[in-house]
């Protein structure tokens, strides 16, 4: 058998995979998706390292200058003004890193009455407002006893999405939700894990039947989205089902939700 598996790459590429390749269209599509991101987020990130080096160097030289000046008693006259920068100010700046987030009370959506209006209205509590203001397209697909609601915005004259919200449900209620952002044009709104935890609880009350009875634990799940301290996941188990809700901590929104059988 081992002999037959030698050159498996050539064998599969010549037969089953002969028409499967990463073509120019796919490459252009990827480049197009990152175009907006490049123009907004990464110019800062690219410069961050140099800015950091510059800041550290400046602080270092200022420190030496201060030390030398102190030794030469150049600051003698101004010693009485040592408290000109109040400590409280510094503490205040640190505390502001995490924005306060207040929540609107969740409204449980009845599984027999899932309309696009109720879903969209409820999602407003879990997504940034500038996202929801920019979802011009809506599509509904009825497939195999399930329904897909898809809100989206595309690049002008293109099939490439800027962002989209997918919600899938059937007669038993919601099955999956995913907000995908391809433009990264979001306002940073850092939230702590405690705030995110509250957001998850509220989301469960809105979208899961008996969601108020679920107890969520913050632990890694859903590998393709999970990113420690950036996109965190909360998991709850009940009646042989696993409920996963994922929150983007950097931008403060619920990114993903799914229900799956626990055996998975």
């Amino acid at each position, binding site marked *: *058998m081992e002999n*037959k598996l030698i050159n*498996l790459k050539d064998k599969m590429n010549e037969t089953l995979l002969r028409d*499967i*390749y990463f073509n120019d269209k*796919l*490459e252009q599509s*990827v480049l197009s998706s990152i175009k907006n991101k490049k123009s907004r987020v990464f110019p800062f990130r690219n410069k961050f390292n140099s800015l950091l080096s510059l800041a550290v160097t400046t602080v270092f030289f200022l420190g030496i200058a201060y030390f030398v000046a102190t030794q030469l008693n150049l600051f003698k006259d101004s010693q009485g003004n040592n408290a000109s920068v109040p400590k409280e100010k510094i503490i205040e700046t640190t505390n502001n890193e995490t924005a306060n987030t207040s929540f609107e009370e969740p409204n449980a959506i009845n599984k027999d009455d899932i309309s696009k209006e109720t879903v969209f209205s409820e999602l407003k509590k879990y997504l940034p407002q500038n996202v929801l203001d920019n979802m011009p397209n809506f599509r509904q697909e009825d497939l195999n006893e399930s329904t897909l609601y898809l809100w989206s915005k595309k690049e002008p004259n293109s099939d490439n999405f800027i962002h989209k919200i997918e919600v899938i449900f059937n007669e038993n209620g919601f099955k999956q939700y995913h907000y995908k952002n391809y433009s990264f044009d979001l306002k940073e709104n850092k939230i702590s894990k405690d705030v995110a935890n509250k957001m998850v609880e509220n989301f469960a009350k809105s979208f899961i039947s008996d969601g108020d009875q679920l107890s969520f634990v913050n632990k890694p799940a859903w590998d*393709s989205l999970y990113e420690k301290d950036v996109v965190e996941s909360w998991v709850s188990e009940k009646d042989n089902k696993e409920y996963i809700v994922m929150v983007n901590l950097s931008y403060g929104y619920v990114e993903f939700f799914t229900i799956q059988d626990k055996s998975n």
Partner: protein
Amino acid sequence: MIEEINSSKVEPPNYFNREDKLKWLMRTYGNDVIRVAYTYLKQRQLAEDVAQDVFIKCFEKMDDFRNESSYKTWILKITVNKCKDVLKSWAFKNLLFTDYFGNNQEDRTIESKLLKKEESQLISQQVMELPLKLREVIILFYYQEFSIEEISVLLKVNSNTIKTRLHRGRLKLKQSFEGE
């Protein structure tokens, strides 16, 4: 079709900016990514979607890549994770399965009629029909030519388990080959 660059050239030049690096990654590993995705998902459209998502993620995470593994291992780890999440997803199991089944039946009938005696075709199909856990190690070991240790890191599975799955995979392939 984009020309495949020799994978032994594992590093993009240092003077490349982020976008150049991304293009380099797509040209070097694009076919590997989409083909590995296809061996997991068995649907061209889904494999294309996954490949796009993988490269977008690579662009986002490029600054975090620390050369602890090769670019190929890093990028295929993202691909494998993405494919597994798609396979787990409720949407895949409930909405898309019918599509795949229909297409697959058709492909299988046509291909088996035309190419039944061709060994390459036969072995490729038999690999694709292996259960996922056996198929992925066969693909990563024989198709992508990763070592047991690399597969162990990539799949986050003990290397002895990889060896066992490889053995079981080969055994199963042998049985189905003899059954033809």
